[in-house]
């Protein structure tokens, strides 16, 4: 499904990372791999270190820390927020919505919308599209998009498919109306027949967590996880990404009537360096235009990887200037989505630690 928006801009991105760093070497002893094979895995996938929340830190804590920072530094006016979107797969509770908890924490105005969205790897794009749609309303002038995931507690320590790459993080993105009428192109595609390619089997209403779901089992590749743990069908995910993402990007650029060379940056979701380089090869985009360094430095925090990528790799270049950016997210759902827009003259674009 294709979308077109006008007169909207991203006016700021703040990425909030856990202060705690864990290295690949600290954890590789847990995997059923020899040290030599683990080092080969590290090299091929681009693993180095990742940011892991401290026990007890939840998604909302990172969001609240980020919002408080923006309020304290005069970068965001609390009363100007007309909608608070919280995109996550690790909400604080089943009920109430985490966005309402955050609204209540700051005692925000009642004349606003709070909305939780369950999305992961494409959560930044899905959240932005939702924000753009809300901004079409006369009553909505400013939307705050919170992307947050603290999924590391759900990943087994003995799962070398997922543990080395998982990261925890949050981001606060401010989206508002703008005089700039340049067109934003976006698209979204979904395939629920692949819904379980990435999943956590137990802990919901279908299969509540119990002593049985906590039992560790070994898979054919020698990884140990329980039904309470996140599981990823790596081969299905790889094939899905290589099959679906390149034609989606081709279609997006075709809709916009621009060539691949015209795009300054391809800011994609960060599954790992291996997959991103394969994607760049297939798209015919130089590695230098598609940063792939988020997993090695911070880990993959699902929907937070694209804002982290923008904060870390573009920094002040989109505060002082303007860049044409193609963003894409792909994964759990299955969901894949992309957005082509100018990022520029932002009020802030930075990383803080919590």
């Amino acid at each position, binding site marked *: 499904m294709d979308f077109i928006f006008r007169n909207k801009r991203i006016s700021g991105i703040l990425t909030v990372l856990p202060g705690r760093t864990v290295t690949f070497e600290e954890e590789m002893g847990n995997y059923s*791999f020899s040290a030599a*094979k683990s080092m*080969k*895995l590290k090299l*091929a996938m681009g693993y180095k270190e990742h940011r892991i929340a401290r026990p007890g830190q939840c998604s909302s804590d990172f969001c609240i820390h980020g919002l408080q920072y923006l309020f304290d530094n005069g970068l965001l006016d609390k009363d100007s927020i007309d909608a608070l979107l919280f995109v996550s797969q690790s909400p604080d509770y089943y009920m109430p919505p985490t966005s309402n908890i955050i609204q209540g924490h700051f005692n925000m105005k009642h004349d606003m919308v709070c909305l939780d969205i369950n999305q992961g790897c494409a959560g930044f794009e899905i959240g932005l599209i939702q924000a753009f749609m809300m901004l079409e309303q006369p009553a909505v002038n400013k939307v705050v998009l919170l992307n947050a995931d603290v999924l590391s507690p759900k990943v087994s320590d003995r799962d*070398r*498919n997922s543990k080395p790459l998982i990261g925890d993080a949050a981001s606060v993105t401010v989206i508002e109306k703008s005089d700039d009428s340049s067109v934003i192109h976006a698209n979204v595609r979904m395939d629920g027949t692949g819904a379980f390619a990435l999943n956590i089997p137990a802990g919901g209403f279908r299969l509540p967590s119990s002593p049985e779901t906590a039992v560790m089992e070994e898979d*054919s*590749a020698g990884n140990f996880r329980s039904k309470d743990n996140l599981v990823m069908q*790596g*081969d*299905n995910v*790889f*094939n899905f990404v*290589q*099959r679906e993402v390149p034609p989606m990007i081709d279609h997006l650029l075709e809709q916009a009537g621009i060539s691949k060379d015209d795009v300054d940056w391809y800011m994609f979701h960060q599954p790992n360096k*291996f997959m991103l380089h*394969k994607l760049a*090869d*297939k798209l015919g985009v130089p590695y230098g235009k598609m940063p792939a360094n988020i997993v090695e430095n911070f880990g993959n925090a699902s929907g937070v990887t694209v804002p982290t990528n923008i904060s870390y790799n573009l920094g002040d270049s989109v505060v002082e200037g303007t860049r044409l950016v193609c963003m894409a997210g792909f994964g759990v759902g299955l969901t894949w989505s992309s957005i082509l827009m100018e990022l520029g003259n932002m009020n802030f674009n930075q990383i803080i630690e919590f």
Partner: protein
Amino acid sequence: MEQLIEQLQELLEIDSIDLTKKFSDYDEWDSLAALSVMALLDSDYGMAIKNSELMAFKSIKEFCEYVLANRK
């Protein structure tokens, strides 16, 4: 077939692959090797293959014949 065999030898870091063997007969075979083979088929042969399909081939020769017959 020679080119494919050479590519497999390079991926698995094996000097001379025995076509009568299965992938899993080699100590070098692991999930990372499987992913590398999937990536090779995707980029050079226009094919997608699942891990379970890779494991089902009775020999590397059978795998190579399948790839060459089904490449795009």
